[in-house]
């Protein structure tokens, strides 16, 4: 276990380095992204631009600029070029909203994804399977922005059931917290409900042909027990690794559209704003933040995987 943790930690350093390097390089290649020009304003003269370049260190060679930016990310001193606020603090401020959104959405999509997949697989080709197939494909095909618009139009403006957006901290009012999050949760979850139920269905149909399922039946187990303890249990293993990465990417600010539409002021919305303003420091920090979660959760997934499937050894899977 110690070796596994050490390996993963080393892997994380490499991933974060690579991700930050690529982000930094891309940003410096984008035309019209000169931060000094943007900071100086539209009609700035060359002297002002020059002095800003010197103040912010934009005249340094790129490797030095990269090094300085990275140092500031990790010491918490990074300042946005746009609103000139501390980037790390802004991210930390956004975490409660983002985590509330992601954890709730994940619970919903896992629950319904597994339920629908299981029900579909019980009678493949039956009416329930066909209905759920249509539902799943509709869920996968509907883009989040469209789904959000439909929800907002029908449930907020027409029926006035839910608020249009905003985030109420859990500690302030748990009921209001959930009430404000229901639409974003479902908007985010529906795509994955469709996707996960399809994956689980096909995993289960494969598992049903396994010899050990025939053995389970030959033992005289009830059909329900065969389906849950043998077919479903074994089919959930691949779902775990899928979930680990999906969830991590979302936690790391991947729910950009949903957060922005519903004005949740989370990490994803911050990312959206920074990209619009070509504001390098927050983009760098949020990308690193996301990559951190992806690496962290892939390690957590592997640990859970080894628990679910005793044939897997952590030491081997870390290679």
């Amino acid at each position, binding site marked *: 276990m110690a070796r596994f943790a050490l390996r993963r930690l080393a892997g994380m350093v490499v991933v974060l380095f690579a991700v930050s390097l690529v982000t930094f390089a891309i940003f410096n290649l984008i035309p019209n992204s000169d931060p000094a020009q943007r900071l100086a304003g539209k009609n700035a003269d060359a002297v002002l631009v020059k002095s800003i370049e010197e103040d912010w260190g934009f005249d340094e060679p790129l490797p030095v600029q990269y090094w300085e930016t990275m140092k500031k990310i990790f010491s918490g001193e990074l300042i946005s070029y746009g609103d000139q606020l501390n980037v790390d603090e802004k991210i930390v401020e956004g975490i409660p909203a983002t985590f509330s959104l992601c954890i709730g959405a994940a619970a919903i999509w896992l629950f319904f994804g597994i339920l629908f997949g299981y029900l579909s697989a019980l009678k493949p080709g039956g009416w329930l399977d066909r209905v759920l197939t249509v539902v799943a494909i509709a869920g996968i095909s509907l883009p989040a922005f469209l789904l959000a618009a439909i929800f907002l139009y029908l449930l907020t403006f027409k029926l006035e059931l839910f608020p249009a957006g905003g985030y109420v901290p859990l500690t302030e009012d748990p009921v209001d917290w959930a009430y404000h999050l229901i639409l974003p949760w479902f908007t985010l979850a529906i795509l994955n409900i469709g996707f996960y139920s399809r994956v689980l269905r096909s995993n289960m149909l494969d598992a049903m042909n*396994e*010899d*050990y399922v*025939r*053995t*389970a*039946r*030959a*033992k*005289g*187990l*009830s*059909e329900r*027990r065969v389906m849950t*303890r*043998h077919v479903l*249990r*074994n089919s959930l*293993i691949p779902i775990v690794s899928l979930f680990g990465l999906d969830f991590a990417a979302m936690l790391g600010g991947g729910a950009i559209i949903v957060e922005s539409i519903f004005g949740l002021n989370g990490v994803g919305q911050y990312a959206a704003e920074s990209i619009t303003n070509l504001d390098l420091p927050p983009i760098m920090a949020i990308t690193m933040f996301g990559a951190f979660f992806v690496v962290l959760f892939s390690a957590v997934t592997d640990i859970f995987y080894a628990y*679910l*499937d*005793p*044939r897997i050894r952590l030491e081997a899977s870390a290679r």
Partner: protein
Amino acid sequence: MSSQPLLSVGDLRVGFATEGGRLQAVDGVGFDLAPGEVLAIVGESGSGKSVTAQTILGLTRSPDSVIEGSVRLGGAELLNAGEAELRKVRGARVGMIFQDPMTSLNPVYRVGAQIVEAIRAHEPGTSKEEARERAIELLRSVGIAEAAQRVGDYPHEFSGGMRQRAMIAMALALEPEVLIADEPTTALDVTVQAQILRLLEDLNRSRNLATILITHDLGVVAEVADRVLVMYAGKVVEEGTLDQIFYDPQHPYTWGLLGSLSRLDRPRPQRLPQIGGAPPSLLAPPTGCAFRPRCPHEFGKCAEVPALDGRLPEAAAHRDRCWLDPEQKAERRQVEGGIGLEAPS
């Protein structure tokens, strides 16, 4: 065999609706199994032997299957029995083991837990501890060393032979009257095969366990069977005692099977003899005798399907499906000093 049969299969027919038409996998198979008897069902891949075995326990689950005939266990019909009734039979009165012990145990549960699951499915009142004790005892009885420790192992920590032993232990957990062993040694090394066969033989003797042994390996049959059913293209082509089948085989297909055994007591042939041709398609079986296209002794009458009849006056229970008369058979099956089937011209 005069005693009441324990298991009686009558005119069993299993067909599958496929895109290419109806595939008749089992075509009128019938046999009786007496208590304590070992019945071997022999045939090549696709002859319908495994489907026959699985249908006995209602494990042929394709929605496209059409099953007719009868399967009676102790007088009670199983073919039209409900799922709940079948569940009481599966594992409890009829145990089953399968070809590939590598994949027949669920890889994510401990071996002991899978045996405990079988026990508690039929005896819900048994506590987990009690069931575990029984699992250890069962593993010990099938020859797993240090059973008390190994009971907590996962299947991948067992060797192939140990897994098949564990499968047998599981099948025996509720002391069934019948054991169906579907190619139990096919996936195992030869030395392990011998051990598993010895184990099955011991169980048959010590528990008077009636056994249906499905195999394509005549060597396995010779070791343990009392009676033999030879299947070809979904039909029984010959049926008799072990000695009758090995020393006085009546059907050319049986000759071919016997002739293609490698024998240590004869000079080694240039090439191992084989039966020419390939098994027929079950979607479009040949008219008449199904073995006709591969049979060098085919003649006019073979265009008619031969009935499974006792054709030997001295042994009515020795039945076969071949139109040749017994004297012709005794003569024609002699190939190079032994029983065999010459290659079709």
